[in-house]
């Protein structure tokens, strides 16, 4: 295990963390502002991945694929908001779980009906297929660098939007005290719809970007949902800044756990025990992190609510 390997793993963790942030940002805003637990957020991620993979295949233009994926997903999300989610804002969290779980079931069947059961193999855009020589002895896939760059750019844009614009001010007001914001004359209905669409766009972007380096299949939304929920709980529900820090933390802990724990265990334990224990501990790492954070700071690292 040399410095270059460590550096490479850190970059991988950064990329994964940034993609988690894209998903968690929408989730934490919807949760923080509308107090709505939306399990179907993962389905929007899945929609983005599927649309991007198919458009990329048909048109051979990756940029177009990402754009279409985001637009289609936002349209689907708007429909979803009007038909279902809008009527859930004032209901119990458990009722929201029930309804959005129903949406997951419907979404999975819809994807199965449109694109079939077999996973899609999304290809990396040709221009970015090769490696880039970052430093001596470390070739790094160009596509993963794009991922990191895009993630950082979107995070910066989101930060500016939330902290520097009027819409962002309304969003923050809603997250810190929704009722007071309503009394002050904020048209929360419009802010809600905007936030939901924004969250959907970010999830679709993450899905489209992740498609070439992960399996595009039914159930991918449910698989990414749990780490995203872990991120927003660690960061503090409703806090974009919290989601960013927590996403990077989870991304690094998860990647580092998978890369470094098994070899470290092999060095100190008998091989048969290490072979069982290593992957288990690596899979558990992010949940241990969450349990530890919640024990020390029960409302997350950056509580949004005063």
């Amino acid at each position, binding site marked *: 295990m040399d410095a270059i390997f460590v550096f490479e793993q850190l970059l991988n963790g950064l990329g994964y963390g940034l993609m988690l942030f894209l998903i968690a940002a929408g989730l934490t805003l919807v949760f923080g502002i509308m107090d709505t637990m939306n399990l179907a957020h993962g389905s929007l991620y899945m929609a983005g991945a599927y649309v991007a993979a198919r458009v990329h295949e048909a048109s051979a233009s990756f940029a177009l694929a990402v754009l279409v994926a985001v637009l289609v997903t936002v349209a689907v999300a708007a429909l979803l908001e009007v038909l279902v989610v809008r009527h859930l804002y004032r209901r119990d969290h458990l009722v929201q779980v029930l309804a959005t779980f*129903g949406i997951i079931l419907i979404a999975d069947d819809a994807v199965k009906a449109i694109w079939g059961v077999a996973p899609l193999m999304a290809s990396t855009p040709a221009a970015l297929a090769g490696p880039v020589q970052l430093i001596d002895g470390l070739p790094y896939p160009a596509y993963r660098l794009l991922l990191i760059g895009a993630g950082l750019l979107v995070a910066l844009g989101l930060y500016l939007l939330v902290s520097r614009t009027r819409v962002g001010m309304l969003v923050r007001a809603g997250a810190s005290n929704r009722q007071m914001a309503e009394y002050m004359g904020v048209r929360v209905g419009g802010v809600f719809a905007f936030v939901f669409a924004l969250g959907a766009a970010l999830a679709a972007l993450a899905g489209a970007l992740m498609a070439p380096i992960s399996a595009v299949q039914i159930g991918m939304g449910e698989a990414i949902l749990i780490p995203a929920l872990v991120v927003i709980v660690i960061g503090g529900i409703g806090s974009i800044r919290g989601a960013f820090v927590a996403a990077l933390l989870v991304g690094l802990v998860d990647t580092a756990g998978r890369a470094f724990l098994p070899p470290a265990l092999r060095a100190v334990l008998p091989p048969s025990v290490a072979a069982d224990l290593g992957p288990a501990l690596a899979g558990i790492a992010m949940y241990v992190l969450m349990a530890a954070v919640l024990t020390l700071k029960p409302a997350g690292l950056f509580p949004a609510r005063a």
Partner: protein
Amino acid sequence: MANPVSDPSRATVQTAAAHPQPRLAVRFPGLVRRLPWLVLAVLALFPLLAPLGGLEYYVGFVRRLLIVAIAAASLNFILGYGGMAALGHAGFVGVGAYTVVALVDAGFSSAWLAWGAALLAAGLCAALIGAVSLRTRGVYFIMITLAFAQMLYYLAVSLRTYGGDDGYGLYTPLAMGAWLDGAHPDVFYWVVLGIAALVFAAFGRVAHSRFGYALRGIRDNETRMAALGYPVYRLKLAGFAAAGAVAGLAGGLLASHNAFVSPAIMHWTQSALLLVMVMLGGLGRRWGAPLGVALWLTLEEMLKLYTDYWHWPLGLLLLLVVFRAPQGLAALFERRDGHGGAR
């Protein structure tokens, strides 16, 4: 009002909004009172009657339904009566199932020993997890129970001694003592039915005991119960551990039923499904859990016969329940004076 994870301002909204008149129970009070015994009798005779109609396959199906209903009833107990919205209940089912696997792998073959151990192991596990989780509130409780269940899931995936991701086959049926033939499917059916009846009777009893009322008090107003001198944390922990133990028992039975155990039974969607079935039936209502489980699994079974796309009608059903029958199905069977249901 069951309002496990929300603030008081919402509770008032809900109380005003939803109080459907119990119709069936008003028209046929006697029928509704005797219905549980009737159902039990029909279920007991089912293995004998099934061959007449060519329904042998469904004996196994009903057995699975009963086992899932036991797990759902235990979740209903902590969620409906105790207000603890746990999204990791399948984790305890898994602990029970893997306890059976571990004992079989070590050479034991007694069903009673294996299921008893499943109950104890899951109860112990739930006590430990509850001791940490119950210090959090609301959404954070949902998330931390989910996190612990995920840890158990990854633990099971990594146990290569027991098959890891591929699971572990239990090829010989467990022995049930001298008088019961453990290998006979009908005998196993009756054993499961007996255990399920005991579990439901016990939960019915506990719901109307001092402990049950104390739990409901905590659900409705924790601060007040603490001010009245109830050991709130200890009561919740006791309820959580008991529910975990019963879920473990269901897991042990499920292991025998499937003759196979894999980490899939403790995936988080299984926890969510349990939650969904309980809420479908009626949260905090005595017969809510079995009703919800029966409806869900029967629909699933029937839809699978006709189409590959059997998820979306179930999803639509969930949306319908949320918007049309927020109290769940069991509310239909309640008598006006409130004695038919649990609250």
